[in-house]
């Protein structure tokens, strides 16, 4: 197990190193410099500024310093917002995004599990078909379309809920639902498949034969075993939540990382774009690592199969 975890961490570091190097090269390749717009800057002033930010050093020196800064969590300074470090901006906005993502995950997976469970127990009934249709729609239609439609019909036409901003529980309802739809759909579908397989297995037959109640069979014997593989869909869920926050926060004007990112794209604030991208990459890789390790602990067969490759 220790060997497996070490191997995975090794890969994680290589991946992070490649992403960091790649983004450094990109930063150097981008047209213009942070000073391009400042036409009034004299040659001497320019020299001073370049010296201050170490932009006069040879590229390898800059590269090593960049990696050193990254290792300490320093993502540089925003081009557009005065005297704000990218790390500070991200950290001040991260809690909002985390809150949004957390609730979407909770709402999505619990509703999804409910749907999947009902579909599995009442296989081939109208409830099963209904649940299948909901999950196909949820997987297919992008969250921003849901968000837009909800904003228009529920927010503007019916005036039931506030259409933007963050803070009150009412304001959270629509963005959380929009973001929760994909996790809901994917966990419903996955749980249904797993549950049907588990309910058909021998130990369930044994449990039935010795007279265990239907409730206990479904929840104690069935659901508990069907839930384990659900960890595998956590990866796609994490990705969907990250891409989701970018657009959902923009649509509902929620002051999180995603909204900052989209605004930075419009203002060409490359340091924030890069910083956010690296932050997302880091987060994503760590989440996948945790999922894989968890899965390796819960189901040792996965680890062995992975080792043989």
């Amino acid at each position, binding site marked *: 197990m220790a060997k497996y975890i070490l191997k995975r961490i090794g890969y994680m570091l290589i*991946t992070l190193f490649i992403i960091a190097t790649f983004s450094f090269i990109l930063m150097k390749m981008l047209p213009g410099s942070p000073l391009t717009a400042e036409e009034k800057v004299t040659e001497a002033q320019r020299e001073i500024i370049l010296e201050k930010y170490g932009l006069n050093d040879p590229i390898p020196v800059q590269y090593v310093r960049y990696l050193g800064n990254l290792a300490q969590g320093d993502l540089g300074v925003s081009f557009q917002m005065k005297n704000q470090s990218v790390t500070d901006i991200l950290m001040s906005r991260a809690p909002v995004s985390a809150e949004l993502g957390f609730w979407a995950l909770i709402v999505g997976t619990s509703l999804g599990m409910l749907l999947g469970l009902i579909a599995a127990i009442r296989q081939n009934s109208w409830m099963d078909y209904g649940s299948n249709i909901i999950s196909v729609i949820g997987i*297919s239609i992008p969250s921003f379309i849901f968000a837009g439609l909800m904003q228009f019909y529920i927010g503007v036409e019916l005036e039931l809920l506030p259409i933007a901003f963050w803070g009150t529980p009412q304001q959270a309802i629509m963005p959380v639902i929009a973001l929760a739809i994909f996790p809901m759909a994917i966990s419903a579908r996955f749980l249904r498949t797993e549950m*049907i397989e588990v309910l058909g297995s021998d130990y369930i037959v044994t449990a039935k034969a010795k007279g265990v109640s239907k409730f206990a069979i479904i929840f104690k014997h069935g659901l508990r075993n069907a839930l384990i593989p659900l960890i595998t869909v956590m990866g796609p869920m994490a990705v969907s939540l990250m891409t989701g926050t970018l657009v959902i926060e923009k649509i509902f004007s929620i002051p999180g990382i995603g909204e900052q990112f989209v605004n930075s794209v419009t203002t060409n604030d490359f340091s924030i774009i890069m910083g956010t991208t690296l932050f997302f990459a880091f987060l994503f890789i760590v989440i*996948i690592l945790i999922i894989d390790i968890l899965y390796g602990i819960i189901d040792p067969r996965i680890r062995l199969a992975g080792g043989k490759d």
Partner: protein
Amino acid sequence: MDKENVKKDLFVPAQKDEEKSEQINRPSLSFWQDAWIRLRKNGGAIFGMVTLVLLTLLAIFAPMLTSHGLDDQDLGLSRMPPKVQGLENFQWLGLDGKKSETFEADSVEEAKDLALARFSQDDFSYIEFDVKAEGDGSEDSAEVKAYYDPYADKQVEEYFWFGTDTLGRDLFTRVWIGTRISLMIALIAALIDMLVGVAYGGISGYFGGRVDNIMQRIIEVLVGIPNLVVVILMIMILDPGITAIIIALTITGWTGMARIVRGQVLKLKNQEFVLASQTLGSSNTRILTKHLIPNTVGMIIINTMFTIPNAIFFEAFLSFIGLGLQAPDASLGTLINDGFKALQINPHIMIFPAIVMSLIMIGFNILADGLRDALDPKMRE
């Protein structure tokens, strides 16, 4: 017929016929015929297939039906609501060429005045009212729904089926050209993923050993890099446009296909027909391209079918956050994004591209599910 009537001579003993016992009664079916029979039974998959064929045909031919171009602007005709011949009398469909909005004020008259100001009208000749609440003089107690007919007001004879956008461009044309571009990007991206993935996975699996080891380590690192991150980074250095999006989508997109093909090739390469071919002196290239790859076609198709909607989604997503196609080019993503800016008052600008996009995504997903069940019975739930 009762018991007594059944006579022995009604029965003739069956002849034992050596030839007939070996006879095959049903026509032999190829893998594809068999898969087609299974797919045909799947209502959802057929629905998806028909939807996709219709949408593709519309994307190809619909822009030819109108006299408008992608970027023909007419500011005088901006934000026209959708109007379709024959559907004008079905108000609830919203295709009657009228804009409707509800106004609240202290009295009915004041509410009507609000409507005049809202639609920039001097008199009531082009506005019809539907009084919902008469009101008693207290604040916002009166409620009227106003229907404004810009087609009559601006004396437009033409029917804009999907309406026009904020610059007066015909949305029908733009939606179908946008669909065409979105589909094209997705198909090209999926095709490149397929070619690279099949070649990489095939070589890695077939040659095995050190080659496989090195190739798999490379993939493991690439898979670790989130797609979202790669796409955003690539888009930033490349000039925005179709090519940039395709490159961004394919740069790590092929890894999934490579892994699947490698797995299949590993499974197949020790089977007897490969050994036979090797014994007969076939070259490695021939074994790979004529024996191994054709046997994995089912998996390749399934995987490609899931790649396409993913690519469509990413393209729309990029356009939505401002990294996608640039004006005046249109894709479903940019159209939806444009629609958002006018959503509150002119929902039709967003709703039509959103519907088309949703139909495409649902179509591909259920068709892919159906194909998976049809082509790979072992994987069936």
